[in-house]
Every structure is written in C-alpha cells, then in structure tokens.
C-alpha cells in the first residue's frame, strides 16, 4: 500500500491483511461445494440440450431411455410441471425464459434445454441423456453478428437509458482541430467459473430446500417461489461456498429442472452442468461492435464525443451489454452522445459478466482516447487529465469522490512513465518489439438495502448472520473484520454466517455492491447490539440478538455520481514474425474506497487484471454460423490466460474513502478488469505502430495486420 486508508470509524481489523477465515476448510477439502454435499436417496438429473438452433421439438423418444439402467424419469415439455413466468424478479427484470424449462416445444437457440433425464447415478443419467433421441422440425437461423443490423434498436438497461445526447455533434466535430473516428469490436466471452453450476433440490416437510452455488440465495429463492407459485417463506436456498460466479450464477435452468424433478419424484435431485453446457446455459458477454468519434481542439480538449455500442441478445430475453456506459462517466464534451443498441439473434441470452458494459466499453473508449492523444501529439495521461470532468457528463451530478488523477500520477511514478519515448516501434529486445500503454478504469458503485442480525453469545463470542455470498472474493472474511471493528472485539471472537436465504433480505454478490451493502447492515446491527449489551444485565443463555435493516439509510443517500476509478499500465512484447503478444508487466492503481482486507482485495484486483489479459489476448467464443452453436465450447478451445501468460503484476490503491458510507467502502469487484484490454492494445500499438481494434489480439491478427501502421 502506498497510503493508508482512513475510515470514518476507529479501525483495528479493517485495513489489515487477513487470510480467509474458511481458508483451512478450502485447502483441506473440508469445505463442501453444492455438487458434493451428500444426501440420502439422491437422484441425479442430466440436462439434454437442443442440437438445432431454431425450430420446434416434434417428439422426445423417451420410451427407450426409460428402459435404461437406473433411469427414473425423463422430463420434457410434454410432461414437466408448469411454471409461472409473469413476474418481475428481484433484479427488476422479467425472468429469462431460458430458466422456464420444458414449457413448450419452441427451440430459440442452440443448446436450449429440451429434457432432463433423472437416474440413480450421475453416470446412468448421462448415458441415458446422451442416448435420448429428440426429433425436431428445424427452421433457418441467424446468428451472424456484425456492425450492419438495420433492425438494431436503442435499448435501456442496467446502465441507464438507451441514448443520451447533448450539443451539436456534427458542428463540434466539424470545428475540431483533431478528429478520430474508429470502430472497435469485442467477441463473445464466457465466464467459466472454476466450479460449475450445481444444485440439489428436495422437499422437507412441505418446504422446498435447494443447496446451490449462486451469487444470492434470496434471489434464487424468490425466483423459484415465483416460478412454482410458492409462498416465499416456504423456499430456502443455501449456498455456503461458491467457486466463482462472475455474474453467471443467478437463476439458471439447472435449479428449476432440479426442483421439477424433486417434485415429481419426491426425492432429492441434483443437477450439475457440464463445462460444455455452461457455454449454452450460464449466460455470457455479448460481442460488441462499437464506434467512437472524438473531436478535440489542438490542446486535446474534447469538443465532441460519441460512443455507440451495438450488442446482441436472444430472441426470448433482452439483456444489454451497455458498452457506451463509460463515456457517460469518464469524459465530457460540449457535444456528447452515447447509445447502447441491441440486435436480436437466434443465440442464447447473454447476461452480466464481470464489469458488464465497462469491460468492452472501456476497450473502445480508452483505445480511442489513446489514438486521439497520438493524433494530438500529447501524452495520453496528460490528455486524460486535461479532460477530467467537474461533474457527471450526462447527469450533471457531483462525484462522491473522483481520484482518477491521483491514480494516474501514482501509477506513472511507479511504472516509470516519465521516461517513455512516445514513438511507436522503436524498442527491441531480440525478436520482441516492446511497448507500454495505459488506460483509465471506472465502475459504478452503490449500496442496496440489506438486513443483518448480530448476536452476543453467552460465551462472549458474537455471531453475525447476513445473507451475503462469498463467491471467492473473501466476503466472509471482510465482513468478519468489519463486524469485529463495529463490535470493538478481536476477529477471533466473531463468526459470520452467510449464504442462507433464511437470514433475510440482503444484496447479492454482484455489481461491485455486495461488501458495501452488507457492511452497512452488519455495522448497523453491531452498533445497535453494542448499545443493547451495554444496557443489559449480562448475556442470557440464548444470547442477545439485534437486527438491522438499511432500507431507509440507503434510500436517504444523496444523488451523486459514485464510481471506483483506476489507472491501468501494461508493458508488452510483440514478435511481428510470429504474431505472438506477451504481457511483460502490469500495474493497476485504484481509487476504490476504503480497502477492508488488503490481502483479498489485491487478489480481487489482480484477478480482474489477469482476466483483462485474457480478454485482450485470448478469450473468444466462436459461433459457428452453419450450426448456430459454438465451435470448441470447452476450455481447450476457449483460451483463458495461463500462469505463463501472467507476468509481474501489481495492484495498489490511493486513499479514497467514500464520505457517504459508514465504513468508507466503494467496491472493487469489477474495476480490476476495466481498461486492461485497452492498456494492452495501446501498448501493442506503442510496440509495433499497429492499432488493433478487434479483440482478442491473436497471433493471426497480428500477422495479418503486418509490421507497420
């Protein structure tokens, strides 16, 4: 750490490095994941996915399969329980019809769930599922995504309205001394958390119990209650340990299918997705085609900014990859226009994937800013500092804090930016051309209402219950530190229990808002408990429990632009004879609120940066236009960065406590990946003199682009 973070409260544990409280359980195997928790009488379901991309199911030939060893049932549209999809879920969206499995005979995309085969063992279920013959009436499909879609439409989403505009774009562009107009593309990308999606459903005395791997148990419980028309109190979902989610672990076909089968068979049923099934059923990041137009005066001050982002969604569900979002926060101009547009194709529904919108959007915008700096002959950091907005470019609202310049200054100092020769293509180390690049990062932060319960136990320890999710981020540990400080006791006297929908409403692990939202509720409960304990006459055997609810406090927050920021730096080596690009070192400096646990925070930020390397150089799901399905949908075909691709990498932060948060937290879940791909692409330009505007920067693309601009 370069500076110590200061909060608004006395801190003992918060801000100090703490290993994960469940770490020993995880490394010894004692921590059980959803797919490995034992149940008596457990049956295993195996999903059967469509082999066509568009059409109708004519028949499901289940008779032969029902005769196979161990097979208990085959659920499909002809016999499955009906579900209700006419509701608005916890995330303010209608459910993706993909989760309403086996309700009709339509197939809207490749890999659509058409049946569930349930058997005594997982192997029997799989063999029978693979033997199940499904006849289809196939219709022509269209899965081709390009910049040319006359039927594309502006679409609002989580990122705000579809279109924002002010000023006269054409006039300002015409009056600009320097103009940049470029198109950037990013491919379809998939989350691939290490732990696959897995759920076990069973009925327990009239109550539906689901053991699952998800990012929010109440989210899943509410959706299941809605789908199956159940009293929300009669559904309990638990998710103790989660091996990664990244946006993909909400409500998915496997949970719904497991509940259906458990209902039909009256015994516990487990459904686990294969890696290949995850490529169809777990959501993904839409490809994007983005056009950025920038106009600046001779000093690099923006007069015009336009960012248009086209993404795709399925024919059954609307999800917008809001790539134009960063422009609404990062840069102002007298003429300013942003648009998120959408086209519907015969593809699976995309979803939230780490830094939705910002990850692909920042690639285009931060590449364009670098190109503008080159055209202006101004250092790219200096150009960004000259364009720091005083208020939200679209909203006009003040920023809660905006310490982006501090990130750039600290990053430039530590990266050695001052010595940089701006000329491209002039540094060599053997067969490698070397270059450096930088980019800005931002991600929206906020808080959502949450509840918590804090109990003073008779033995002098404390138990905190909150329906948080630890998807690998270290949330359980962070909340332990926060609770210990709020209770003013050492961390070893506090146990934090999470991942159980019975603990009551709380924010999901998502949107970089989990830790802040939960910490608020935990702090409020702990404060109230301390007061209660101080006034009480000893602790009774059942302990003293106090509950908190932050709905009013969060609702009273003033309207502001609230974001985490960062400056990403990368050095790359490029062999233009083979097209290989290797990252040699990376540095990310962030202004992301008060950092609770430097150990896990650094892991989360560098994890995002490593994913950014993957995004820049490796990740690309290739949709086969002939079949409409993915080509090479496994981790041999879909490349993510290996250890050998990850160089010397550092993440650090500047002091940036959020003044409106009781603990000073902002959020660090997403910002680590933002801007990385642009920093790497900018470094590749600096190394070679060639701009790469399409990700990933694969060897064949480097070779095809040639050695010079």
């Amino acid at each position, binding site marked *: 750490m370069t500076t110590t973070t200061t909060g608004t409260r006395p801190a003992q544990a918060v801000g100090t490095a703490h290993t994960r409280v469940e770490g020993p359980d995880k490394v010894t195997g004692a921590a059980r994941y959803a797919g490995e928790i034992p149940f008596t009488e457990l049956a295993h379901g195996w999903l059967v996915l469509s*082999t066509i991309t568009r059409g109708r199911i004519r028949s499901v030939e289940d008779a032969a399969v029902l005769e196979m060893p161990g097979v208990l049932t085959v659920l499909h549209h002809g016999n499955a329980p009906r579900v209700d999809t006419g509701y608005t879920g916890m995330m303010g969206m209608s459910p993706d019809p993909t989760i309403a499995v086996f309700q009709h005979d339509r197939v809207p995309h490749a890999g659509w769930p058409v049946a569930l085969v349930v058997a005594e063992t997982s*192997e029997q279920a799989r*063999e029978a599922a693979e033997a199940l013959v499904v006849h289809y009436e196939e219709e022509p499909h269209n899965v081709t995504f390009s910049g040319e879609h006359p039927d594309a439409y502006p679409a609002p989403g989580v990122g705000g309205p579809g279109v924002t505009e002010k000023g006269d774009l054409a006039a300002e562009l015409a009056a600009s001394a320097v103009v940049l107009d470029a198109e950037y593309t990013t491919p379809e990308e998939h989350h691939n958390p290490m732990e696959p999606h897995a759920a076990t459903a069973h009925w327990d005395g009239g109550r539906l119990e689901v053991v699952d791997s998800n990012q929010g148990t109440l989210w899943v419980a509410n959706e299941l209650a809605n789908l199956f028309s159940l009293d929300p109190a009669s559904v309990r979902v638990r998710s103790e340990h989660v091996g990664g989610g990244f946006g993909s672990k909400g409500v998915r076909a496997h949970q719904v299918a497991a509940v259906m089968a458990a209902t039909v068979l009256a015994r516990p049923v487990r459904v686990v997705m294969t890696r290949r099934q995850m490529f169809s059923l777990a959501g993904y990041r839409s490809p994007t085609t983005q056009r950025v137009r920038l106009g600046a005066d001779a000093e690099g001050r923006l007069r015009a900014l336009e960012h248009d982002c086209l993404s795709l969604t399925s024919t059954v569900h609307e999800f917008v990859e809001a790539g134009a979002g960063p422009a609404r926060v990062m840069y102002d101009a007298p003429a300013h226009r942003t648009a998120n547009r959408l086209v519907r194709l015969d593809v699976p529904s995309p979803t939230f994937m780490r830094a939705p919108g910002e990850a692909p959007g920042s690639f285009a915008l931060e590449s364009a800013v670098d190109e503008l700096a080159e055209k202006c002959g101004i250092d790219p950091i200096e150009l960004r500092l000259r364009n720091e907005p005083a208020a939200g470019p679209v909203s006009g609202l003040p920023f809660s804090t905006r310490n982006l310049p501090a990130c750039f200054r600290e990053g430039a100092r530590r990266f050695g930016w001052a010595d940089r020769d701006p000329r491209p293509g002039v540094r060599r180390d053997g067969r490698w051309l070397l270059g450096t690049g930088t980019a800005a990062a931002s991600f929206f932060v906020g808080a959502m209402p949450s509840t918590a319960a804090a109990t003073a136990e008779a033995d002098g320890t404390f138990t905190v219950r909150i329906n948080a999710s630890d998807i690998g981020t270290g949330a359980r540990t962070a909340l332990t530190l926060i609770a210990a400080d709020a209770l003013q006791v050492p961390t070893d006297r506090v146990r934090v229990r999470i991942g159980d929908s019975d603990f009551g409403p709380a924010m999901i692990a998502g949107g970089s808002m989990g830790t802040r939202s939960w910490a608020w509720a935990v702090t409020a409960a702990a404060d109230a408990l301390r007061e209660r304990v101080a006034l009480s006459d000893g602790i009774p055997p059942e302990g003293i429990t106090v509950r908190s609810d932050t709905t009013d406090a969060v609702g009273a927050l003033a309207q502001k632009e609230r974001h985490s920021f960062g400056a990403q730096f990368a050095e790359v080596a490029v062999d233009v*004879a083979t097209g290989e690009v290797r990252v040699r070192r990376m540095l990310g400096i962030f202004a992301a609120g008060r950092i609770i646990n430097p150990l896990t925070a650094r892991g989360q930020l560098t994890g995002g940066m490593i994913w950014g390397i993957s995004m820049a150089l490796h990740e690309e799901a290739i949709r086969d236009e002939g*079949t409409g399905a993915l080509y090479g949908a496994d981790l041999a075909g879909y490349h993510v960065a290996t250890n*050998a691709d990850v160089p010397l990498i550092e993440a650090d932060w500047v002091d940036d406590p959020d003044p409106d948060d009781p603990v000073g937290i902002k959020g660090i879940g997403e910002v680590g990946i933002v801007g990385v791909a642009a920093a790497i692409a900018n470094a590749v330009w600096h190394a070679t003199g060639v701009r790469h505007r399409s990700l990933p920067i694969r060897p*064949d693309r480097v070779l095809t682009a040639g050695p010079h601009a």
Partner: protein
Amino acid sequence: MKEFGYQRAADVSGALALLDADPDARFLGGGTNLVDLMKTGVERPGRLVDVRELPLDRIESTEDGGLRIGATVTNSDLAAHPDVRRNYPALTQAVLAGASGQLRNMATVGGNLLQRTRCGYFSDVSKPCNKRVPGSGCSAIEGEHHNHAILGASDHCVATHPSDMGVALTAFDAVVDYETVDGPGQLALTDFYLPVGDTPHRETALPPGALITGVTLPPAPVAANSRYRKVRERASYAFAIGSIAAALDVQDGVVRDVRLAFGAVASRPWRAHAAEQALTGGPVDAAAFAAAADAELAAARPLPHNGYKVTLMRNLVVAVLSELAEEAGR
C-alpha cells in the same frame, strides 16, 4: 458415458490377444486423449486394454548410434533422457512444448503418435465431421478453420495433427515399430500417417489390431544442432498454430545437412522435403532460407481464414534456421 470393460495387459502377446478377441476394444496408453474423447462421446469403446504397464518403457542406444524409444515411455521421461537432450535437442524441446507437466507424466510415446485432431468439429458429436462420421461432411471448410491445415488437406477434411513430439520425430526420420498377432512390422513415420483423401477417418497405415511397441531414431549428427519452435495463442498449454523442428549442419559456409518438419499445418507432422532439397549445398543466409520456405509452401492451399499460416511458417523457417546458423558459426 458408455460403460466399458477394462483389462490390464501383462505382456505384448497378451495385449494383442485381448484386442484380437474383441472388435470393440481399444488400447489405452496414458489416456490423456482417449479418455477425454470417451467423456465427450467421440470414442465409445466397449473395452480398454491398458498397455501402459507393458515392459516397453526403456530408451536404449542402438548399435549404429541411434535410439530406440519404447512405446510406453512417458513424454516426461523422453524429454528428460540425457541422450535425447544431447543428440536430439529439438525432440526434448518439442515434448516440453506440449501439454502440461501432469499430462506429460501420463502420456506415452505410442499414444502421442495416435492422438486425434483437436478440430473443434471432431470433438463435438453434435456437429458433422467426416473424420468422426464418414460422409457426414466437413464443417470446418465453410466454418471455423483459422487453425486448420494448409498442406496436404482435402475437400473432405482440413484437420491438423496436434502432436509436437511427432514433428521432431518426423524431422529425424523416426521409424515406428509395431507388433501384430501375425508378427512385427515397421513403418517410417513419414509413411505412418495416411494421406487424407476421401478417407479422413483412416489415419494411419498400422494394420488392424497392431500395437506400437516403440520408435527408432536413426543416428543423425545434424540433430545435435536442432531446435523446436512452437507458436500458439497463449504462452502455455495450447496446441500450436504453427511449429517447426529444424536441424542444420553448416560446413564452409554451405548447408551440408538440414532437416525441417512443420507442425499444425497438415493432417500429419509435415516433413519439408522440398525446402530441405532447396537448402542443401546452398548458402546460409536469410534469402536462401526464405526461398526454401517458399519452395515448400508453394503447395499450400490456404482457406479464407488460415492464410496467415503461410506467412507464419515462412517466418519461422527463416527465424529458426538463422538462429541455428548463428549457433553453428560460433
């Protein structure tokens, strides 16, 4: 996943008898490819005959100064063997460029030669593929093929052979030794893989039921100055998009002996005879290297999205031969 039987063979004749008795049986080496394909349903054997414990795990010098490598020698042991490292360094480099440490500990020399293509259409049973289901069509030619073959392919299949090891063995004139119930046999590695033609599902010239027992490397002084370079889409744990095994012997500024083989460009490790011929007896400079590469690559028939491989292989020939020439000159 289909249920299957499993038996471990104690000796070569026992292994051959087990396979001969069951037309649905397959030999199992390290299982690093076959088991994956069984999981995805590409391979559905009824029985596995495990040959990994057969006494074929030794590397021995031959009388003429070459090496005989047993079929069950693991990739790790092959790469680490002192004679291999000293006399055929490109072979060690090739093996170490493949897979991961864990996989190399399991994978065998025999299995490595018989591994199947990593074409994404071949490994996905929901898609047409002539190699997997003869006559079903090739999805790659009109579809995704940026990492497919530019040499020796056909209108029926453009898949590549994935082996790194095989590329170095091909450069050094390796011979495959095998046994059948009718007796032993040998095949030069350059004849071991069949032309693609209209039978891409028939990959090798091994007789039915044959068991690879080893690979023999003839002595090759030129191999002492050799190198393997692999280009892939990430730094580790990926199949090549282009690779080269090269050996160079320079005498008085003239190429006295040269070996060149390419990987990831054809259905088999591609011995670059035309390039070798163009180089032998000629000058040692980048222009000659490039001309030799062009001579070999004149036969290339790239598809719309893999033409870069022609450039890549040309650049690799020049780069690696230049490095070897520089080292030979020291």
